[in-house]
């Protein structure tokens, strides 16, 4: 792959640079677009719905919600997940909360404000119409979840409680202790199990999608591997929905679950689904710092802690005194100092970079100087231990379990870690990719968060896609596409199965000496250093030169024990890591070509004198959507211009 950056692309006006990139945004004023589109949609005859089969891959918030809702509508749904139960998808680990424009606090919230905060939070790199729809349906999500029995936090009068989150000046986040993701997912999972009982959904747990099957240019099925027996088989459908999460595990160490992977979306990309904005990867500011080489994952401490915790480092470099010996006037509460309006609740990208900055200055704390304090001392004095334990008890416990330190006694130590990706498969307003019949929901798509996601917005987007968008848009597609019978005896399925089998064999046959984790860690280190919190032309070119070497080493030095016809966890991981080399390359290439800083994408060449991100709206107010051209071929960068009709583009300031 060539690494020279081409000359700056000129702004393309409002036409996408590839006909497949038509976002199909409905006409009319922003507030009427979704209603209008829903009315334009064609409806499937209720008696015909059972004749359609829909595949949903992934059972997180988006996948479980979509599968359950499609089942309720009467479609035959096939649901797949690699976990042993649908309830274990990684949405379960989201801690802090879910945003909704209910304005229950009477503090001035509205659909418009949630819309505006999200567009601004995303540093003006998201589609207005999508974000507006997200804000509109946010209130329905809370209604839906409360009705399912999600035990949201309540006030004494019995009404729902709220808290604040980064990037907002209103209190609009709903929560269930520090386990909001768990409770929302269990709600969606239970709705899904209800459809299993009704015979509308057939579950396939411990089953991993390894390829997408196209017939006549449309997505018509998938090839899967049974992770217990190793059997390769195919499933045919009238539409395929990928809700398979993000690719943060590319970096090896991240807050994602061990099994999270990009294979489903990457296989789809190789079949023609464009990949949008792969360089938008979010680094979360409040994670527990790593403790050693053997570290297998990083643990997030909810951003909600920043409501009551104050972030600081010593004023002096290399100050090794224990935190309680550092007097008040020798502490630098740097977020409060630099961003007085938002203070400790500055958005994630900004807080992460500020932490990196003070650590780079040599003022970091803990082993290796890679950490900052998150201190609850003042809040304990102000509110008392009981109030704080009510809010964060399980997080305090978790921190103590992992580090052996009690946050009641000593300040927490935190450091940024890879957490979420805004990039993903390109989708239009209806969440359909550039492959007809292939829909993408949740973190797996790129749609709503622009260059940076605000806290408590991932749960909102996953459930919005799953409950309130996909069930409508898929029906419309099914009618427009017309019903043609394709089953898994079609030759395309045999071909895809053969390809999958060959790939498994090639992984098993490498016959090297090192385990998968060794290679994955190596790739992760490279990407974290060269394409992490701060990126430069030089670092990205370095990464692009190194990745092919690492890939070579992988395909020569990997050892996978056992066979393909059994439960083989090394083989599962090997297939996922093999895809990361290609995806990692695309991420670096995208970061190199986006010659601006925006949101989570920070190019050191493009910053203000104060070190803030410097956007280039004239040249980069667009979505970069990459087209696969074959192994070893340079992918092609297309553009979908972003039109800002309601929101005025401005420098994003949280000061």
């Amino acid at each position, binding site marked *: 792959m060539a690494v020279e950056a081409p000359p700056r692309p000129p702004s393309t006006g409002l036409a996408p640079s590839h006909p497949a990139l038509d976002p199909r945004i409905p006409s009319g004023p922003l507030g009427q677009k979704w209603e209008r589109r829903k009315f334009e949609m064609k409806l499937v005859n209720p008696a015909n719905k059972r004749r359609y089969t829909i595949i949903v891959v992934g059972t997180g918030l988006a996948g479980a919600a979509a599968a359950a809702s499609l089942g309720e509508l009467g479609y035959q749904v096939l649901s797949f997940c690699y976990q042993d*139960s649908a309830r274990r998808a990684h949405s379960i680990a989201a801690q802090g909360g879910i945003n909704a424009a209910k304005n229950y606090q009477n503090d001035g919230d509205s659909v418009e404000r949630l819309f505006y905060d999200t567009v601004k939070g995303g540093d003006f790199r998201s589609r207005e119409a999508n974000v507006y729809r997200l804000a509109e349906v946010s209130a329905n999500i809370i209604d839906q979840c409360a009705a399912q029995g999600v035990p949201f936090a309540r006030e004494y009068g019995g009404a729902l409680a709220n808290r604040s989150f980064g990037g907002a000046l209103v209190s609009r986040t709903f929560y269930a202790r520090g386990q909001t993701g768990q409770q929302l997912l269990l709600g969606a999972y239970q709705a899904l199990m209800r459809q299993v009982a009704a015979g509308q959904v057939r579950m396939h747990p411990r089953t991993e999608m390894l390829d997408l099957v196209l017939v006549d240019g449309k997505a018509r099925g998938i090839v899967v591997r049974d992770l217990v027996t190793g059997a390769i088989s195919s499933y045919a459908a009238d539409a395929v929905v990928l809700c398979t999460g993000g690719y943060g595990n590319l970096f090896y160490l991240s807050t994602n679950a061990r099994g999270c992977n990009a294979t489903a979306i990457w296989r789809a990309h190789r079949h023609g689904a464009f990949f949008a904005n792969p360089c938008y990867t979010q680094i979360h500011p409040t994670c527990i710092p790593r403790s050693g080489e053997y570290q297998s994952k990083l643990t997030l401490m909810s951003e909600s802690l920043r409501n009551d915790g104050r972030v600081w480092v010593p004023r002096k470099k290399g100050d090794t005194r224990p935190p309680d010996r550092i007097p008040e006037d020798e502490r630098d509460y740097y977020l409060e100092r630099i961003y007085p309006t938002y203070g400790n609740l500055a958005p994630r990208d900004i807080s992460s970079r500020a932490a990196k900055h003070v650590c780079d200055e040599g003022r970091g704390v803990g082993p290796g100087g890679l950490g900052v304090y998150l201190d609850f001392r003042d809040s304990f004095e102000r509110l008392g231990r009981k109030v704080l334990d009510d809010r964060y008890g399980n997080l305090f416990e978790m921190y103590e379990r992992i580090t052996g330190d009690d946050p009641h006694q000593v300040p927490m130590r935190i450091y940024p870690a890879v957490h979420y990706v805004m990039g993903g498969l390109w989708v239009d307003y209806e969440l359909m990719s550039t492959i007809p019949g292939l829909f993408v929901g949740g973190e797996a798509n790129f749609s709503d968060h622009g260059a940076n996601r605000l806290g408590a917005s991932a749960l909102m987007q996953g459930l919005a896609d799953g409950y309130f968008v996909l069930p409508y848009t898929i029906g419309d597609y099914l009618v427009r596409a017309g019903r043609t019978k394709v089953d898994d005896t079609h030759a395309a399925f045999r071909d895809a199965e053969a390809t999958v089998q060959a790939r498994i064999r090639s992984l098993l046959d490498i016959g090297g000496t090192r385990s998968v984790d060794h290679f994955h860690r190596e790739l992760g280190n490279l990407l974290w250093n060269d394409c992490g919190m701060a990126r430069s032309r030089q670092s990205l070119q370095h990464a692009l030169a190194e990745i092919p070497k690492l890939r070579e080493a992988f395909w020569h030095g990997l050892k996978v024990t056992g066979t393909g016809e059994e439960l083989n966890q090394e083989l599962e991981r090997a297939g996922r890591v093999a895809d990361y080399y290609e995806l990692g390359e695309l991420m670096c290439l995208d970061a190199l070509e986006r010659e601006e800083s925006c949101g989570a994408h920070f190019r050191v060449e493009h910053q203000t004198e104060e070190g803030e991100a410097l956007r280039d709206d004239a040249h980069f107010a667009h979505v970069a959507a990459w087209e696969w051209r074959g192994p070893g071929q340079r992918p092609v960068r297309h553009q979908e211009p972003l039109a800002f009709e309601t929101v005025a583009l401005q420098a994003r300031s949280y000061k």
Partner: protein
Amino acid sequence: MRIVLDIWRQRSPAEQGKFVRYEVPDVSEHMSFLEMLDVLNARLVEKGEEPVAFDSDCREGICGTCGFMVNGEAHGPLTKSTICQTHMRHFHDGQVLRLEPWRAAAFPIRRDLVVDRSALDRIIVAGGYVSVRTGSAPEANAILVPKPAADRAMEAAACIGCGACVAACPNASAALFTGAKISHLGLLPQGQPERPLRVLAMSAQAAAEGFGHCTSIGECSAVCPAGIQLEVIARMNGDFIRAALSRRDEQEPMATVPRSSPVRARTAERQQKVE
């Protein structure tokens, strides 16, 4: 520190298993238990031996994927913790640890420390939900929930579905798991309409899966990573008795409804008389 492991190795459900001894000589106290096994596995792979299969995913104690017995204790010696959240600082140099999979007839073994817990899913399928269709929900604040009820429902809902309760129970009962879901939904106004049916259906499914009965031993609660208390079983039993005594679908109807057309019914009556 040096840790000695006796690990249950079983290649497939059909094959015989046995304990195999391994040593990890250089364990750091900051490692999590599963990271220690990662290190062991990487070395096994490098020697060309098959690594130990064990389940894990989030590695932060919330997904419920991990779990095995350490010296006879589900999730190891730490209370209110999954094995992924147990760090090696709780063990000492030279310690011998025996690792076995969850043992229960309803959890068939798949490989090494991996078992099949789909029976727990089927208990939820039997009725562990509120039947609400997407889009049909009322305004969220239209139904107020007293804070104590919401808080207690949250405590019961915190179950991570790991199956430690079953593994620890001498009867291999799933009462804590089933009771937690029944209590969560039964404490909320949204869960009331289906409350009697739910407890009957879920209990019947648990029995059908081969889980034993509860004899109030309390091992389940002692090992539960979410700290769920035996009270959820008491609530389930209370609901069960109430529901069993008032099975609504078997009660006499409030009014008789003609099952077929009146004319045919009369003809049938006459025919009966003739016969």
